């Protein structure tokens, strides 16, 4: 009897020790924090994302109970002229804005990299100012500058002897007006990223080129540009994701009709103005998948360039 008691006791001690040992492998703090984070993401991410998927197969207007409609929201999307209009606006905007911003940003970053110290820092600060101020402030300011009847830009054009423009009142010009404004906003951040990339390039490469008599242009074209390729691809990916989600720019600088309505604005309007939640969710799923594909394609291109 006593033997068996002792045996049990010994077994218990071993068990506790083993348990203690196991506790040693895992950090309780780590496990607790990680689990808290998981619960948090369950509530603010997994559940909402599942609802988005679920909603896209239903029709719901906030009032009557949601009704399952299968793929009909997606079918509707492909036959919806407004949807394709929004796709066109979004893609045109992204393509034009990103190519111009990256081209200008690259050249300016390269020029800036030839300067040092306070000169470099102060110029960079001026370019970076629009990045940091509230987007609503820049949007309201540009809306005012773009006023066609006596606004600041038209006053400037007239004083230069050029004809005044309708700007946001014209469905041809409005989108390009927003593009100019958004380039102005983000040029600083594009430059900072490229500047960081250029600073990584070994100085002796550029010095060697200079000794060989390469001017600024050839240094840029044959050394900086090829070596910055990964940074450029990264910038494109980040910018595509960013521009697809711009919102207030398109709301407060909107052109006539639907000439500047993007997918993001369309999603918002479907969800919170037309109360067409199911269809809005379907459009938002389209944005998600489109960005996923665009990112994958870009990253694949990056790997392809690294192979040779």
């Amino acid at each position, binding site marked *: 009897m006593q033997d068996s008691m002792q045996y049990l006791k010994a077994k218990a001690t071993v068990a506790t020790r083993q348990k203690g040992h196991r506790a040693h*492998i*895992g*950090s*309780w703090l*780590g*496990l607790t*924090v*990680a689990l808290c*984070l998981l619960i948090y993401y369950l509530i*603010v*991410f997994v*559940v*909402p994302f*599942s609802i988005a998927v679920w*909603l896209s197969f239903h029709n719901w207007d906030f009032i009557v109970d949601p009704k399952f409609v299968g793929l009909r929201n997606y079918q509707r999307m492909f036959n919806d002229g407004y949807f394709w209009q929004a796709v066109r606006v979004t893609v045109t905007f992204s393509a034009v804005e990103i190519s111009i911003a990256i081209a200008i940003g690259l050249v*300016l970053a390269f*020029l*800036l990299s030839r*300067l040092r110290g306070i*000169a470099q*820092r102060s*110029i960079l600060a*001026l370019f970076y*100012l*629009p990045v*940091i*101020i*509230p*987007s*609503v*402030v820049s949007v*309201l300011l*540009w809306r*005012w*500058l773009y*006023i066609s*009847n006596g606004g600041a830009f038209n006053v400037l054009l007239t004083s230069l002897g050029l004809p005044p423009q309708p700007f946001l009142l014209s469905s041809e010009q409005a989108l390009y007006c927003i593009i100019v404004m958004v380039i102005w*906003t*983000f040029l600083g*951040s594009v430059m*900072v*990223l490229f500047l*960081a990339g250029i600073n990584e390039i070994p100085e002796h490469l550029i010095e060697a080129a200079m000794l060989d008599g390469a001017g600024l242009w050839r240094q840029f074209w044959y050394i900086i540009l090829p070596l910055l390729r990964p940074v450029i691809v990264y*910038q494109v990916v*980040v910018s595509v994701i*960013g521009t697809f*989600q711009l*919102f207030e720019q398109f709301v*407060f600088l909107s052109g006539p009709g639907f000439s500047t309505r993007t*997918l*993001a604005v369309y*999603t918002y309007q479907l*969800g*919170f103005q037309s109360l067409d939640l199911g269809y809005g*969710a379907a459009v*938002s*799923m389209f*944005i*998600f998948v489109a*960005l996923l594909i665009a990112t994958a394609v870009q990253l694949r291109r990056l790997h392809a360039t690294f192979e040779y």
Partner: protein
Amino acid sequence: MLIMNSSLSILAVVRKRYGIHLSQMIIFVVLIALAMLMAYPFLWLIFSSFKTAKDIVTLPVQLMPREWTLESFRRVLAAPDLPRAYFNSLGLSFIIVALVLATSSLGGYVFARLRFPGREMMFLMILSTTMVPFITLLIPLYLVMQRFGLLNSYMAIIIPSAVTSFGIFLCRQFISVIPRDLYEAAKMDGCGDFAIYLRIILPLTKPVLAALAIFTFLGSFNAYLWPLVVLNDKHLFTLPIALTKLLSTYGVTNYDLIMPASLLACLPPVIVFLVFQRNFVQGIALSGIRG
């Protein structure tokens, strides 16, 4: 000719003494000119804020005030909702920054240094949340907040911003290059995991936390879409919402309030930027985020 000669000799002196080349001077001049072009819209914002109300809304516009006055700022202070919105935005941003710093550093530490079952998988799951754009979560997150009864409250703004997977990722990257010996030595001295976090990891993570604090502050102070969706009560409005409401209620004529209020709205971000400029550039290089 003489002028050209003397200016060339000045250039030679400058070059000798300061090591500045002619090409650098040309670049500097070109860049300064372009930077002025960038600053052009700001000139309108600044000068307009010192105009009289009538002067601001008169078309065609004129850059310089006809009469310099601080009257417009007095109007902003007297406006019913603007000062309140200003403090709402500042307060919310400080709370969110504090929460993001705490959760990012703790989360980064946990995933970089501590061992527990499922660590890699959980980290990947948290990272994967960055794949989904916010616009996709907009409608359903609103529904979740509604279910919890949090609409039209600050919690609806604070909760979704309190943790960022980007912050956790950034801190993890930074903490995982802190020498492991430090951690092991403290462990030998009998320090618990949390004590190590407080006494060793947190002080060493300062640079990355500074950068994270700046971006989080700007992000929450400037946020528009989410506050627009969840806030209804004008006492709760954040500054960007309050600014745009001026526009929609009174039309173009209300620019006599929008201009000075916008200028005031730029102050906190600009101050943060100027004070922490060094961390800014570092932070962007570290993370490569856009805006």
